[in-house]
């Protein structure tokens, strides 16, 4: 993907990656071999007819391309941007064996952006069934489940606890990676299918559990919103943020535009971000845009970073300093952050995931201190405990997830769950994939009733 120049993008929160031109999109589409048994589709969690839509682009029929994608994915502008295509559809592309795989993600984004600019076709829905479905959470899982159920002709109410829909797409992923007008546009497409969206509603409280269970079916997609902490000294100082808080203050509350917007934020002149995933990259890149010198502390090696390669490259380009093979042991200061003490890590034998297990070095001189005034912890999130804990008969899995079968069915027959609340923290597209399955099971169940 082409990117805007670094000096320019550090001045704003506008999108970094620029899309393909029509001409380049067609050229890229013409590279597709049209395999008789396409492996790319197997790599897609929502099974988009990838050769089908690429073929339509090659024939310059962008409308048809959009139509094909939307059969399986109502959020193409989002997925085209944040899916890890290099690990999914593109990783199985046959062209990738000898050359570069077809840039499927870029093509998906192109089609979605083309359609947004050229008028959107609302997909058809089945005749009304009169069945009522409650969808809890308006993130990628909730929106996907709602779409599938609406298409089957059911009446859908989406409950969102925040004041804006979109879940992690809205509060978590920064605008330079996921522009907020695009999120809103794709959500509006779903609402156009007839969903009712209730903001500021906390299910289990604003909507009591008995009221929730009175729906013909329920889909829970409350996500992985519970931030983990390192559990080291100094985490309570002012200036220590979870990535969730830091990103929410900026993305949802626009603290970057304080005092025009009311929400404050300690910007920090020197910021340490702890963690190596996409959320850590997002936090580091937001902190850079707020003008700070940024360190990213990761306990394994640079090649072990779980973030997308593209995001790591963006962070490096934007001047984030990577401090790998190091782990914080204590935050210094009080009550404000004055530094972070770290220990060097050595890599030991690999675990089941194939990554080396980091172990703290013991020899003298293994510790060092970074002089920082803000620390952002981006070490992962657990499932949101609030609603799941309020439904008495709902069986919980390990680490607080809601236990589901392969169709997303929970221990309560008409209650389904999908996305991070069922799988544990994963990606947008995996959340959508599991939600799609659950919605199919809901539609099947309601058709049989």
């Amino acid at each position, binding site marked *: 993907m082409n990117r805007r120049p670094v000096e320019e993008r550090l001045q704003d929160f506008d999108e970094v990656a620029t899309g393909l031109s029509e001409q380049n999109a067609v050229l890229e589409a013409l590279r597709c071999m049209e395999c008789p048994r396409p492996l790319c589709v197997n790599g897609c969690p929502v099974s988009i007819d990838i050769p089908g839509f690429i073929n339509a682009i090659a024939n310059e029929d962008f409308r048809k391309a959009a139509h094909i994608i939307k059969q399986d994915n109502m959020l193409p502008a989002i997925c085209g941007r944040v899916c890890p295509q290099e690990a999914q559809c593109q990783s199985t592309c046959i062209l990738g064996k000898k050359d570069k795989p077809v840039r499927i993600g870029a093509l998906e984004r192109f089609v979605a952006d083309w359609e947004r600019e050229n008028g959107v076709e609302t997909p058809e829905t089945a005749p009304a069934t009169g069945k009522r479905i409650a969808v809890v959470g308006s993130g990628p899982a909730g929106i996907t489940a709602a779409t599938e159920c609406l298409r089957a002709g059911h009446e859908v109410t989406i409950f969102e*606890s*925040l*004041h804006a829909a979109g879940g992690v797409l809205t*509060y978590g992923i920064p605008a330079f990676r996921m522009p907020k007008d695009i999120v809103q546009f794709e959500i509006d497409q779903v609402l156009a299918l007839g969903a009712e969206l*209730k*903001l*500021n*509603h*906390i299910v289990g*409280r*604003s*909507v*009591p559990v008995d009221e929730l269970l009175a729906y013909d079916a329920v889909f829970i997609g409350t996500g992985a*919103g*519970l*931030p983990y*902490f390192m559990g080291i000294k100094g*985490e*309570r*100082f*002012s*200036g220590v*943020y*979870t990535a*969730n*808080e830091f990103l*929410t*203050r900026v993305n949802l*509350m*626009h603290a970057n535009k*304080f*005092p*025009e*917007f*009311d*929400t*404050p*934020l*300690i910007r920090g002149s020197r910021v340490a971000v702890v963690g190596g995933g996409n959320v850590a990259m997002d936090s580091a890149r937001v902190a850079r845009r707020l003008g700070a010198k940024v360190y990213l502390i990761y306990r394994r090696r640079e090649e072990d970073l779980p973030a997308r390669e593209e995001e790591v490259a963006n962070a490096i380009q934007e001047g984030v300093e990577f401090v790998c093979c190091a782990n914080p042991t204590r935050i210094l200061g*009080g*009550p404000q952050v004055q530094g972070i003490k770290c220990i060097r890590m050595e890599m030991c034998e690999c675990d089941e995931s194939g990554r080396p297990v980091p172990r703290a070095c013991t020899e003298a001189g293994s510790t060092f201190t970074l002089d920082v005034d803000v620390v952002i912890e981006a070490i992962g999130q657990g499932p*949101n*405990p*609030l609603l799941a804990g309020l439904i008495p008969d709902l069986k919980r899995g390990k680490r607080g997830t809601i236990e589901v079968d392969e169709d997303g069915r929970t221990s309560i027959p008409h209650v389904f769950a999908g996305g991070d609340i069922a799988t544990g923290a994963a990606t947008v597209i995996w959340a959508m994939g599991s939600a799609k399955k659950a919605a199919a099971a809901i539609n099947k169940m309601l058709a049989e009733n």
Partner: protein
Amino acid sequence: MYKIVKRDQIADNIFEFWINAPHVTKTGRAGQFVVLRIDENGERIPLTISATKGDDVRIVFMATGKTTQQLAAMQVGESIRDVAGPLGKPSDVKKWGRCAVIGGGVGIACLPILARELREAGNDVTGIIGARNEGLLLLEDELRDACDELVICTDDGSKGHHGYPADVLKEMVSDQILDAVWIIGPAIMMKITSLATFDSGIKTFVSLNPIMVDGTGMCGSCRVTIAGEMKFACVDGPEFDAHEVDWDELMNRQRTYTGQEKESLEHYHEHKCHCGDHQ
């Protein structure tokens, strides 16, 4: 959008607003709170549910910062952009026996709903309220009605007992007539007042008010230390055992944005004056 159905100034710089929010009143109980955001540019602030009536919820606040001053300037018929709730766990209302509910400053506003629920559960309830002076006392009549007995304290002696609610609480503790106590007010007041019950081991609840953003357990801004463990006030609380709270940490974290809060207020007043030119 949530409409303001009634508003009043009930003490010096202290306001009560009744807001139409059926999703809050349906299950909202003592101890719980709402998070509100006035408009598109607004911050999310938590406010304890002070009462509910039909579809309307009451909040009470002192107009000290940017958001509360902006809110105080709003009129009946105008709407607040977002009201989310009810959030947090309800107060531990059950048959305790003899209870004292103690309010300091704006915290007094949280007591009527709590006192009523406690009495309905069969408790004998004494209300103790304190403020710097008579002008800052609020909801006296309502509390007289909600409690079996009401004791009024002022720091300057302008009304009732000349002194602090802690003095009254200490006497009640030494008379051994208490089974449970609630203290709601500024952190420093809750810290000092709760010392009165420390030795006796009387169950003492406080309602913590750290800085929050979402109020649903997602950001961790409201983390507090309770008996050495990290808890989120928004979902694990906001009420906790007073004797287990790390008060100094709470107060330090509450001061995180003191500078920005001042800046925000100044920006608001400049902007307000500017707008006034056009009226």
